[in-house]
């Protein structure tokens, strides 16, 4: 992979992380309310998948979708404004954090009811197939969503009719507080696809490069008309399920282990910096990989560390601007709300 792509991936991950951490802050301040599900820890999945996607592909996501939305080109301004419930948000303040939409960007929504993404994506794919377009739908879902009946029903239909869907499981091992071995009889999500004869792979979701490559391959096959594919990305969320969740059901040691050794942002930094540390250097770095690695790089006086800092401030600026934009945006009115509901009412006037 060329260094430019790698830098793009790194920047996307840094922005994702910065955006989400800022959203958490704004939630604490009271600027954001409702359920707020954040993405830190899982960045490699969205960044890898959506950088590999084509511009005419459609995306269907869950309530944990801020990063997915931004990666499809919805501006951080519009996403942040939506989290603030403002009129300039991408759903004009009607949807909030869980329901980002952008018709033009083919971002077909964040869905709040677990399991809804399956039929929606399958329906979009049906429409594509009817029109015989070389497009695909990317359908995101968590490990917990796999046990919903719609997973089964939709995958069967998608396979039966050869629909162009890439099913993407963000397996962070938890359905809120329930660990995957306590919610799934088969804990390897990709194996679930066997019941539908859908090609499936499990990929390290902490490694953005692997995610990017696997996605690209799968999409090529889908464009070629071979029907749906499923990719399972193993990942981990660093925060609680939502801002309302203290996350106390997870052993601290588990959380630390993932944070220190597997932070996808750290991995991306490592992979992007040209002076890649040796296996020895990494193991010498001990558990606190990110910081140690960064300071090691720093000590070595790499130019790229400055570049990294530049990236960090660039994304910080983007996030600051987004918050300013959101704060400045007006609130939608009741008339707006009525008009949004009536978007499907053409000229007709009801009694």
């Amino acid at each position, binding site marked *: 992979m060329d260094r430019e792509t790698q830098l793009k991936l790194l920047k996307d991950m840094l922005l994702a992380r910065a955006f989400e951490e800022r959203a958490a802050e704004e939630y604490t301040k009271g600027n954001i309310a409702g359920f707020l599900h954040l993405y830190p820890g899982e960045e490699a999945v969205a960044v890898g998948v959506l950088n590999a996607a084509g511009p005419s592909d*459609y995306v*269907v996501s869950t309530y944990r979708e801020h990063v997915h939305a931004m990666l499809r080109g919805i501006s951080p301004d519009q996403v942040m404004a939506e989290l603030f419930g403002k009129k300039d*948000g*991408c*759903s*004009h*303040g*009607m*949807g909030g954090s869980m*329901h980002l*939409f*952008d*018709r033009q960007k083919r971002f*077909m*929504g964040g*869905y709040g*009811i677990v399991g*809804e993404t*399956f*039929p*929606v*994506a*399958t*329906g*979009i*794919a*049906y*429409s*594509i*197939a*009817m029109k015989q377009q070389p497009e695909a739908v990317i359908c995101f879902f968590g490990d917990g969503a796999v046990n919903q*009946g*719609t997973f089964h*029903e*939709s995958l*069967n*239909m998608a396979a*039966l*009719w050869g629909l162009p869907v890439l099913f993407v499981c963000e397996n962070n091992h938890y359905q809120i507080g329930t660990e995957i071995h306590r919610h799934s009889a088969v804990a390897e999500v990709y194996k679930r696809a066997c019941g539908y004869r859908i090609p499936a792979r499990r990929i390290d979701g902490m490694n953005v490069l692997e995610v990017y490559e696997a996605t690209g391959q799968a999409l090529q096959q889908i464009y070629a008309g071979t029907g749906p594919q499923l990719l399972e990305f193993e990942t981990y969320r660093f925060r609680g399920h939502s801002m309302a969740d203290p996350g106390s059901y997870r052993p601290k040691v588990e959380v630390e282990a993932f944070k220190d050794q597997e932070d996808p942002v750290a991995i991306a930094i490592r992979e992007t910096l040209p002076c890649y540390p040796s296996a020895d250097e990494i193991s010498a770095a001990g558990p606190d990989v990110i910081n140690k690695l960064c300071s090691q790089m720093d000590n070595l006086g790499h130019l790229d560390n400055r570049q990294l800092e530049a990236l960090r401030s660039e994304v910080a600026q983007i996030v600051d601007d987004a918050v300013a934009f959101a704060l400045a945006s007006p609130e*939608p009115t009741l008339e707006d*709300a009525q*008009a*949004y*509901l*009536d*978007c*499907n*009412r*053409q000229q*007709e006037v*009801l*009694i």
Partner: protein
Amino acid sequence: MAEEMFYWQALNRALYQQMEADDSVFLLGEDVGLYGGSYRVSEGLYARFGEWRVRDTPISEGSFTGLGVGAALLGSRPVVEIMTINFALLALDAIINMATKIPFMSGGQFPMPLVVRTPGGVAKQLAAQHSQRLEQTLMNVPGLRIAVPATPQDAWWQLNQAIRSDEPIIVLEHELLYFSKGEVDTQVEAPPMHRARVHRQGADLTIVTYSRMLQVSLQAAEQLSAQGIEATVIDLRSLRPIDWDSCVQSIEQTHRLLVVEEDSSFAGAGAEIIAGLSERCFYLLDEPPKRLAARELPIAYNGTLEAMSIPRPADIVAAATDLCQTKDAI
């Protein structure tokens, strides 16, 4: 111009016409294709339009209705057939929490040209699980429309309108109406989908009803007439929205209101009709408004009990007579 046909044929023609006119219209549901639909509604369409536009589905109501929602996001105009409304209980998330919410939640970016066709009601000894009447469940959903055609003409008009509309719409048919016959004029312009229709004018009381109970009410009205009681019979045609004006106009003449519905009384469709008209016609009514509805029981398989469970012409006659007792006194 008008032609006599079955209710199912009127629906069939409407589907044909819309599919001919617009490539983005497609049907899906169990056995709609090769089999031609359990009630023949999609007969002949599979042969004409092929499997992509007339899609036989697995038994997966929740997801194939949701598939319709997804396809509608791309501008397709899916017509989902849920074989009977009993199975719609499995598809309510798709209808209520997806189809009707997306246009709103997206801030108006996604209209939802989805039609869900399904027969509801009590048929012939299908027992409790196959005798759902879910109209009131659907009525409480902002952003949804419910058309309830009671005649072949309305079936023709309303299905055509529903497919052309960008709103999510339930076309609530009735198993016992499919093989009823009536005149259909396919050329004349349709009234607005939600406009009620006065089927009979009478000065003594207003009977408000919908779907199959229209026929039962009309029979009762004939009998009442023989007894000297003249009823106005209004077919709502739409349960959301309700055409209040037509009802109020009639009550201005009759001052008495009887609502006849096939679902069970408590919190049924009639509750809204009574409540809406009590609010609007408080000073017009001479008598307490009355509901005649199904009993507060699941529907028994036994045929006698089944028949006793929902309004029959005699029940309507009795209720109307009761309501008009004071008529001569005044």
